């Protein structure tokens, strides 16, 4: 069982990292950025392409991928969100436009053919790939009957450190205070001289960079990489996580991520693989019924 708890913590770190980005945008902009899962996928895909096609060492490739994902966040802001905001369109329009962008991102990777940047994806017809062995040092430790992989331990440490940094920035820095002010009351923040558009853009940048990082760590240590990892593995689960934790709450997203990891693994061990996915969403449903504001949500506001 201890090994299974470890498994849950490792996958939970990915869910948490992904969901933090999700919830950050929701908290500040009041919209669900459904392109977040596509950015998650691109984090893995871009890193893999740089490492395998260009023989780039993992670390610079990962940094480039995270930065590119951050820039994609800006693209989401400028293409899918800002024009609608200028027209005072309802949040549902922004939701739809981010779905559109997500489909475009996936299609770009999906349509890759021989000779294009993403051509590796279809080699051997396998449709999914793994980082070659030895991309990063991956020592495996066996301690007291437990198996701990170096890469997964790396994920845990990276996630926790980043989430702590984010928590610090949000709470104790000028930027964080501005962010929270915008989240609280956009108009009042504007009157206080905060450049709201800039806050929105930086939120999208940070959120997408975190999403991309979650994706590349997921591809590095957990799963195969394919155009569908975002859609299939984290899109709805990420939603479950932020509902569990309280929509818009960063500590809630972190806790929700680990909670979902644990629920999934316990469901698997207790009820088997047939019901694993169902149990996660049963937990979501239960939370919506019993405590709609989630674990950390102070009160439920009209968001969508």
């Amino acid at each position, binding site marked *: 069982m201890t*090994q*299974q708890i470890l498994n849950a913590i490792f996958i939970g770190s990915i869910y948490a990292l992904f969901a933090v980005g999700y919830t950050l945008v929701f908290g500040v902009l009041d919209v669900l950025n459904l392109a977040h899962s596509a950015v998650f996928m691109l984090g893995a895909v871009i890193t893999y392409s740089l490492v395998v096609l260009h023989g780039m060492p993992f670390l610079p490739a990962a940094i480039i991928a995270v930065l590119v994902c951050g820039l994609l966040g800006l693209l989401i802001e400028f293409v899918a969100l800002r024009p609608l905001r200028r027209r005072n369109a309802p949040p549902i329009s922004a939701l739809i436009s981010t779905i559109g962008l997500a489909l475009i991102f996936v299609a770009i990777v999906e349509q890759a053919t021989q000779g294009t940047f993403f051509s590796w994806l279809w080699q*051997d017809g396998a449709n999914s790939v*793994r980082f070659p062995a030895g991309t990063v040092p991956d020592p495996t430790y066996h301690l007291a009957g437990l198996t701990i992989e170096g890469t997964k331990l790396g994920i845990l440490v990276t996630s926790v450190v980043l989430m702590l940094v984010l928590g610090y920035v949000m709470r104790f820095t000028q930027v964080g205070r501005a962010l929270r002010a915008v989240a609280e009351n956009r108009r009042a923040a504007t009157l206080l001289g905060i450049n709201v558009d800039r806050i929105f853009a930086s939120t999208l940048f940070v959120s997408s960079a975190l999403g991309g990082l979650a994706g590349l760590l997921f591809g590095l240590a957990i799963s195969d990489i394919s155009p569908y990892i975002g859609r299939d593995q984290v899109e709805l689960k990420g939603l479950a996580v932020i509902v569990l934790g309280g929509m818009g709450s960063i500590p809630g997203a972190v806790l929700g991520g680990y909670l979902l990891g644990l629920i999934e693994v316990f469901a*698997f*061990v207790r009820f088997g693989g*047939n019901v694993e996915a169902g149990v996660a969403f049963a937990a979501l449903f239960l939370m919506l019924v019993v405590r709609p504001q989630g674990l950390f949500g102070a009160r439920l506001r009209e968001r969508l």
Partner: protein
Amino acid sequence: MRNVARGIAIALALALAACGGASSTGTTTSNSYQGKTIQLGAILSLTGAGGVYGPSSKKGMDLAVEKINGSGGVNGAKIALDTRDDASDKIQSQQVAQTLFQQVQPLALLGPTLSNSAVAVHPLAESFKIPILAVSTTGIHIVPDCNFPKTDPCKYVFRDSLGEESAIPANIKVYSDAKHPKTGVLMVANDDKFSKDGGTIVTQTVGQYGIDLLATIPFPKATADFAPPVTQAVQKHPDVIFITSLGNIPANIMREARKQGFTGQFLGGNGFNTAAVSKAAAADGKGAESGSAWYINNTFTSNAGFVQAYRTKYSSDPDQFAAQGYAAILILADAAKRASLTFSDAAGDRTKLRDAMETVNIDTPLGRFQFTSNHDVKQTIWVIQMDGIGGFTLVKSVTPS
């Protein structure tokens, strides 16, 4: 009015002449198809979970078509093959089949890649009386009972792919005879027919060889993190982990199990038998055994020639799925050659082709090929193991009893 009557008379005369012409051509050169086209359709999984198999089948088929057309065709007729992707999806597979029936009106069909899709497509082909030759479906109730649970035999459904009912027991027998394992755990994908059938066959077989199945661990194919199911398997400390699943999943399970310290044996089914899986598993898959319909290093002429031609055309090694795809075209070409096709009566031609297929007896890369009375394949089973670098080595050949 007279003009109309004259027009009708002329049209009738022309029609009669045309019929007469056709029948006289048919009798004088009954086996010359010069200038005709033998239209075939293939439904393959070129993307999705079956995307590790479909492209190989396609390459094998394309190579055979090229070879036959390049050496004069089938009694002078060229083969035209229309291959379509079903994205490994059952519903899409059925839609593709229907599109092919209507748009291409093929003499015969090949595929689909996955057993899961075959249960939707084969009954459709049977109802349209179009011969369909499965090239990679190895599940149970593919032939002859394609309408399972109805048991009446499907007359138009054939397969040239070795069924798991033959391959998995042969593989377990060979390994048990050599190593005498005592315990096993079965890891089975629970959301497709091929994997579930494989699991059923493993469950039914292990007892005969004194292997105690400690646990059966089902998982959905979309599982990303195999750590939890593999932890469950490894903690049972089995001698053997049986894996019946598709795509890269067997490789992912092997990799995770080795990381978690599993040192025992992996045994599996047809899902192991492609170079893509062996390559993905790499060193972690070394020694993993499976029963295969084909072995690359067989030296008989029909295989050596195929392997060489494949390497020349694609600059890579063929796998079992390419060999079965290639063999399928040879089988259909041989049947078409002997079927005295008219090219004017589609339904009649299809029945003639079906009848000729039942008596196929030719050399293929799989070995000497014939169908059983149930339209299944009866052939030598090659028990192979992954070599740790993307290929396979032969463990033993098993002649069917």
